[in-house]
């Protein structure tokens, strides 16, 4: 069946009232549409080549290297700086001032002068300054225990212990990857029209993929220094099992709220993909076999996914149970009936936890790259149109939009202390988003506008005293405090997935739910919360390395 035959209507997509809740967003899984998978497919299809023109790392592991990706029209280079970091300075938090390694993604091939300039700025991260020749700025810390283990084993001519590789999953974890005009880096608009870079976070995803290569090359370099002639390299299969870690805190959470049109584009793409597969009348034998292979991969992934965090531990147990239940259900020949994917997802709504439902929704996309991968091109959006308020709209029309799209917000009573217990702000210390306790900490008067449900409720109340024919331009000239909220409501009018339908200042709100949703769109796996606002993940686990990309089957690595 061609995708032109599969044209789900808006009503066949899962409703925003169901999927835009934090509990479900916080159970999101990577899919075929995740940014890193889309990037690798694009690089492979365009025949990109990769090399390492510079390796200038000394016997103490200090120096720099350059990793270059060359495509039909352009090239990009990761400039990596390796440092000697004392253990006591190693921190993943944004307040850190030194790291094991620092990086910039350069637009083209850097000259010696470029590398010299970058060497004076990139190691300082936020305290340095890059230019619009650079597309991203990032840093990473080693996984201390796995790093030492791998160096020791390789130096002795042995392979690392499989269990330890599985338990950690990466040699380095990035602690920030900045792009889009930050600290002098090129504005996103600079990348407009570049095919490989046209999706969301593509430059950042390319940088992280090349950082993974650097982490493996560096560990093998250190093993050679230590073991000399005895040292060996990691076997390719085991090498591929090492991804790149990432450690992320609150700074990422407000992004989804600040970019409602983008959030809608991501969600719409994913939900349209799910709806296209659900609309299929049957599944061929190869499609079923592909799906079953991925289910088995998901079972192995869930078995190896570890987290000590109490919330995630409960969810992981539920996921493992869900997958066992799914396998049992599939053994009853569930895929042989008409509209098998729709029937399967309908079954999951009562049979599985939310974690399992979202895993299944991601899995059914796997056999259908030809049907859904084109949706990746819809995941970037021009936010120009949504930045403008249509002031010729009447107050009555706005009231109707609130009633249709924000009944969930006006239904919340924000008066009890716990319903407005938090406030979002930007810290003076590191210019990073933080979450305060409204009734215990100072600073609520400097609150960032992330109190969406409360603000909509306040606007709805204020509109009670306004004549329905009043133009919004006039209302907002008089009452500009509602301007931010009116903009959101107008944005949501044609973008049903633009708004998280929960109270973001509630005392029970979990920021890790927002982090997980965004990171799943990146393609992250193995979510391991370290608190309610801090999470470690793994990226590119099992993915091909640059030198393997052309020779491995396309996009075959997500569920090995």
């Amino acid at each position: 069946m061609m995708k032109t035959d599969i044209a789900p209507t808006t009503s066949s997509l899962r409703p925003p009232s169901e999927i835009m809740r934090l509990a479900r967003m916080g159970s999101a899984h990577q899919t075929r549409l995740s940014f890193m998978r889309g990037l690798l497919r694009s690089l492979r299809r365009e025949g990109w080549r990769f090399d390492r023109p510079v390796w200038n790392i000394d016997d103490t592991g200090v120096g720099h290297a350059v990793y270059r990706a060359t495509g039909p029209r352009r090239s990009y280079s990761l400039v990596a700086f390796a440092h000697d970091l004392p253990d006591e300075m190693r921190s993943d938090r944004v307040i850190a001032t030194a790291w094991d390694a620092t990086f910039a993604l350069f637009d083209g091939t850097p000259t010696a002068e470029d590398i010299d300039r970058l060497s004076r700025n990139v190691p300082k991260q936020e305290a340095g300054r890059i230019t619009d020749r650079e597309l991203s700025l990032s840093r990473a810390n080693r996984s201390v225990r796995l790093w030492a283990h791998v160096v020791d084993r390789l130096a002795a001519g042995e392979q690392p212990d499989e269990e330890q590789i599985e338990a950690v999953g990466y040699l380095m974890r990035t602690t920030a990857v900045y792009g889009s005009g930050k600290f002098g880096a090129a504005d996103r608009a600079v990348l407009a029209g570049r095919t490989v870079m046209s999706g969301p976070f593509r430059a950042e995803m390319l940088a992280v993929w090349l950082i993974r290569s650097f982490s493996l090359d560096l560990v093998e370099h250190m093993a050679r220094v230590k073991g000399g002639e005895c040292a060996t390299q990691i076997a390719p299969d085991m090498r591929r099992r090492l991804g790149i870690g990432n450690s992320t805190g609150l700074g990422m959470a407000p992004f989804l709220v600040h970019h409602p049109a983008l959030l809608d584009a991501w969600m719409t793409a994913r939900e349209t993909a799910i709806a296209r597969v659900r609309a299929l009348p049957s599944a061929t034998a190869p499609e079923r076999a592909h799906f079953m292979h991925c289910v088995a991969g998901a079972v192995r992934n869930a078995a190896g996914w570890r987290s000590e965090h109490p919330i995630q531990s409960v969810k992981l147990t539920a996921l493992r149970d869900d997958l066992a239940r799914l396998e049992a259900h599939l053994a009853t020949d569930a895929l042989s009936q008409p509209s098998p994917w729709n029937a399967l997802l309908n079954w999951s709504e009562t049979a599985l936890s939310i974690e399992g439902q979202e895993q299944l929704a991601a899995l059914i996309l796997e056999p259908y790259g030809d049907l859904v991968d084109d949706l990746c091109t819809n995941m970037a959006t021009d936010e120009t149109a949504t930045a403008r308020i249509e002031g010729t709209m009447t107050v009555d029309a706005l009231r109707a939009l609130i009633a249709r799209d924000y009944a969930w917000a006006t239904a919340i009573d924000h008066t009890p202390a716990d319903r407005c217990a938090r406030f979002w702000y930007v810290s003076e210390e590191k210019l990073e988003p933080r979450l305060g306790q409204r009734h215990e900490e100072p600073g609520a008067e400097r609150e960032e506008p992330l109190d969406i449900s409360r603000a909509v409720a306040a606007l709805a109340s204020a509109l009670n005293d306004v004549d329905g024919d009043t133009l919004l331009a006039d209302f907002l000239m008089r009452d500009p405090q509602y301007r931010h909220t009116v903009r959101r409501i107008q944005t949501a009018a044609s973008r049903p997935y633009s708004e998280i339908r929960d109270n973001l200042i509630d005392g029970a709100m979990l920021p890790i739910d927002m982090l997980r949703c965004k990171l799943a769109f990146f393609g992250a796996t193995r979510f391991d919360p370290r608190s309610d606002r801090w999470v470690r993940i793994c990226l590119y686990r099992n993915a091909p390395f640059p030198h393997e990309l052309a020779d491995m089957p396309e996009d075959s690595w997500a569920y090995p």
Partner: protein
Amino acid sequence: MGVPIIRTLAEIDATVRKAMRGHGYAWGLAEEAGKAARWLASYGLPAGQVMAELASSNDGFGSEPQTRTCPLTQATALADRALALAEPITMTAEQPLLILAQMGRAADALDRAFALKCEAFQANIARNSLTITGQGDLLAPTSHLICRPAIPIPGSPASPAACAVDACSWETLCMLAERILVPASDLSRAGAGTALSDND
């Protein structure tokens, strides 16, 4: 006027947004200022000076500027009605470049063209296009600014490149932006990071 420094469009947008909130504007108007500054900078116009000038009156966090007369409110209210603009309208304007920026953003969003004319300059704005001519002081107030719908004239496209910003203006904006920051407390530090060691 100070020496220019180089800032990206994203930095200009974000800093002006925070500065105008720090100055006392509601978030929604502060966002308009950030986007307007980005628009001006993308056409090589003096975004930093326009915004520093805007912030030079009604100073003080928490004291809402006189919204009916302030140049940002005037420009924003005009742009809010851009869809209904059928006939030329004439106005006084303390900061004609703010009117230009907000109508320019409306032209981008609505894919329409508008013409502006005052003593210092005349301009045609359309989606991703600006033609501006004139010898006068772009920053000077005007008592006779005409804004009307127009036929688009092919002009210069916006540039995404980092651009020069007047250093004194930038310093003013950064100081205002600091007003929205909240100092760290023991409670905030305790909640921000992981509760566990990163040395593992």
